[in-house]
C-alpha cells in the first residue's frame, strides 16, 4: 500500500494514495467526472482547480491532470465560467489599433494588478498581453498568449471582468488571418491544384499494383 495523504474535496476529508494527481485522487475518492475533465493531458483546460494547503490562506491554482496532490490540500474545481465572447466575422474584421478595444471594451478597465499573470497555470504573462492588446500590438499578444489552453482561471481573478483568453484568441486569429504573410509556396500549389497538375500521376498510383507501389515506395528519395 502506498503512502496515504489527506485531501479535502470541496471541504470534505478523504484519504488517498499520495502519488496520485489531483484528477486521479478525486476519482479515487469515488467521484465520476462528467464536467471538469477533458483531455487528461494538459491541453484542454477543462480541469482547472483552485486549492490551498493546510494552515495557509494563499489560494493556488493547478490543472488537476498535471499536478500531484499534496497532503492537506483543499480542492475545488471550476469546470465552467460564464465568460462573454464577442462574436465577429474573421474574414471582414480589420486589424486596426482599435479593433480589440471595440470587441472587448472592458480591456481598457485593466488596472495592471497582475492577478491574471499570477494565476496562470501555463505561466503566461497575461497582463502584459492585455496591455499589448490595448495598444493594438497583435504580434505581441499572439506571441505572449500562444500557449494559452483557455482554462479561464485568469478571468476568474480579474477585478476588471476582462475575459483575457477570448481577447487573446481574437487577437491571434486576426494576426494569423490578416497580419502574418500567407505562405507563398501554398499560393503556387493551389494554382497547380486548380490546373489538376497532379491528377494524372495520382490516378496512375491508384491503378498500380501493390508490388509496383512497394517498388516505388522503396526507391523514393527522402529529403
Amino acid at each position: 500500500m502506498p503512502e496515504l495523504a489527506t485531501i479535502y474535496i470541496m471541504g470534505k476529508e478523504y484519504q488517498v494514495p499520495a502519488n496520485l494527481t489531483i484528477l486521479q485522487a478525486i476519482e479515487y475518492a469515488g467521484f465520476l467526472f462528467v464536467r471538469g475533465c477533458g483531455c487528461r493531458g494538459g491541453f484542454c483546460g477543462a480541469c482547472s482547480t483552485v486549492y490551498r494547503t493546510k494552515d495557509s490562506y494563499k489560494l493556488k491554482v493547478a490543472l488537476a491532470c498535471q499536478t500531484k496532490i499534496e497532503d492537506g490540500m483543499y480542492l475545488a474545481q471550476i469546470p465552467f465560467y460564464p465568460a462573454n465572447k464577442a462574436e465577429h466575422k474573421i474574414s471582414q474584421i480589420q486589424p486596426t489599433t482599435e479593433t480589440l478595444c471595440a470587441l472587448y471594451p472592458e480591456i481598457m478597465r485593466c488596472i495592471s494588478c497582475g492577478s491574471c499573470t499570477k494565476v496562470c497555470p501555463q505561466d503566461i504573462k497575461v497582463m502584459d498581453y492585455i496591455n499589448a492588446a490595448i495598444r493594438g500590438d497583435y504580434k505581441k499578444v499572439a506571441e505572449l498568449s500562444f500557449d494559452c489552453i483557455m482554462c479561464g482561471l485568469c478571468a476568474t481573478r480579474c477585478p476588471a471582468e476582462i475575459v483575457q483568453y477570448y481577447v487573446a484568441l481574437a487577437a491571434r486569429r486576426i494576426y494569423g488571418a490578416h497580419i502574418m504573410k500567407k505562405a507563398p509556396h501554398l499560393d503556387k500549389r493551389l494554382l497547380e491544384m486548380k490546373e489538376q497538375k497532379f491528377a494524372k500521376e495520382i490516378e496512375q498510383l491508384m491503378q498500380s499494383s501493390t508490388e509496383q507501389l512497394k517498388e516505388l515506395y522503396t526507391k523514393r528519395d527522402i529529403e
Partner: protein
Amino acid sequence: MYPKEFQESIKKVEATRQARKGSDFPRLSLAERQALLEAFHPDYKKGTMRALSVGVNKGDKTPHEFANLFEAYSLIDPERFTIPQPKYSVDVLIIGGGGAGVSAAITAHQAKADVLLVTKLRIGDANTTMAQGGIQAADKENDSPAIHYLDVIGGGGFKNIPELVRALVTDGPEIIRWLEDLGVIFDKADDGTMLSIHGGGTSRKRMHPCRDYTGAEIMRCLKDEFLDNKIKYLEYTSALELLKDKNGNCVGAVLLNMENGEVFTVKAKTTILATGGAGRLHIQGFPTSNHYGATADGLVIGYRAGAKLIFIDTIQYHPTGVAYPEQILGQLITEKVRGVGAQLVNADGERFIYELETRDVVASAIIREVQERKKGIMTATGGGVWLDTPLIEMVSGPGTIHKQLPAMYRQFIKFGIDMTKEPVLTYPTQHYQNGGILCNEFGETNVPNLYVAGEVSGGVHGRNRLMGNSLLDILVFGRRAGRHAAEKSSKIANLSEGTLDHLKQYHAELQQANIPQERKSPMLLPDYRPKQFQGEFNFLAKLRQ
C-alpha cells in the same frame, strides 16, 4: 527528479551522446519492417483478439476490448422503450465536437443547412486538441500530393483505400489555406514560408507545426469560428443509438443529457458521426494518450445500425508515450521531439532503431528493446527507453526546446524533469484507431444518410497512420462530409418516422450468440473509480424507469 537507479543509465546516455550526434542509423527494408511487426507489435500478440459473433463484420477479428462493446446490449431496451417525439428536427445532425465534427458543422452551415452539433464533453474536448507535432500537406516546391500519396500508402501497409487517400492528399493544400484564413498561426518565416519538418515515414518535410500546440491552435480557431457562425450545439450530450426508418435510412439519433439523464431524440435528414477514437478502452492494458471521452461510442452505435467496419484489427501505439513519472503515464511525447533531433537509446545509451520509421515499427522496436533484449529502464509501472532530448539543443541550437516544444517542457518540468538537460523515459501508448467505419470519399457509409468523419472512420490510413495525417484527415473529411450531407439533406423533403427495429434485430442476434445480458454499451465514459464505487452512472437512471 529521477530516482537514483536511473542516474547510472543516464550517465551512459550522456557518455555516448557526442558520438551519436549527427550519426546515421540504417532504415529497415519493407521485409525487415514486417518481421519486426510480426514479432513485437501488439496487434500480432496471440490471444488478444477474437472474431465478432454478431453484426455486419461477423467473423472479423478485433481486440477483445472492442468485441466486448460490439457484443453488448444497448443501454436502451428497444422492446420497452417508447421513442419520444423529436425535440429537434434538423437537416444535419453532427455527433461529436472535435475537429471533424466542428469542421463538418461549419461547412454544412455555410452550405445553408440547419445544423445541430451534439458532443459528450465540451466542444474541443477531443484528441484534436491534444495533437501536437503538426499537420501534413504537400504544399512545398519539392513535394507533391503524389509523393504524399505514396508516403501514406506505404505507411499504411499498402492496404489503404485509394479513393480516400486521393481525397486526403488532394485537399491538403486547400485545407492549409482554409486554416490560414481562419487565423491559425503556423510556424512561419517572415515571408510566410512554412517551417516544415519530417514525421515518421515522410519522404518530404511536410509537417506544419504550430509550436507543439498544433491541434490545440487549430481546434480553438475552429471552435471560435463555429461560435461566430452561431451554429446550434448541445454539450454534455451523448448518443445512445441511431434511428432508422422503415427503408433503412438513418433519420437521427436517441441522445442523452449526461447531466440530468434526459433521453430525447433528434430527427435529422442526414447524420454525421464524428465521435473520434478509442484510447480509453486501454487495449491490452496499455495506457493511452487519448482524451477522456475516447470510448468508441460512434463505432458501436454505427455498427448496430448496420455500418460496415474496416481494419478493426489494428491499433496504433504511439512509440513515445510517457513511461515516467507515473502520474502522467501514457501521455504523449510528440513525434516532433524526434523530428527535431532527439534519439531513442536504451539503458546503455545505444541507438536501436532509426527514429523516424513509421510508428508501428518504432513502437515494435521499443517493445523489443525492453521485453526481449532487456535493455530497458525498469519502473514501478513497467519499463521504457530513453528519448535523448538534450541532443535537440545540440543539433538544432540552444533554446529550441523552449521555442518549439513548450508543452513538452511544461509537461516534464512540473514533475522536476528538465528535458533540456536530461533525457525522458518513454514507452508505447495506445494512440489511434487505424480502422473504423468504412466510408467513401464523401464520408458516406453503407447506411443511407449516415456519414462519418475523422477517427471513427476507417480506410484512409490503411493499417497504420502517419503523424500529421490525422489532423489533415479530420478537416478533409469533416468538410467533405459536411458539404455532402448538407447537399443531400436539401434533396430530402419528408422524413419518415425513426424506429429502433435495427436494434431489435441486433439484440436478437446477441441472444442467439449467447451474449451475457448484463454486457452493455456504448461505454460513454471510462470509470477510473475504485471497484466499490463503480456501477451504473447516475445520468443513466432515467433509462431504467
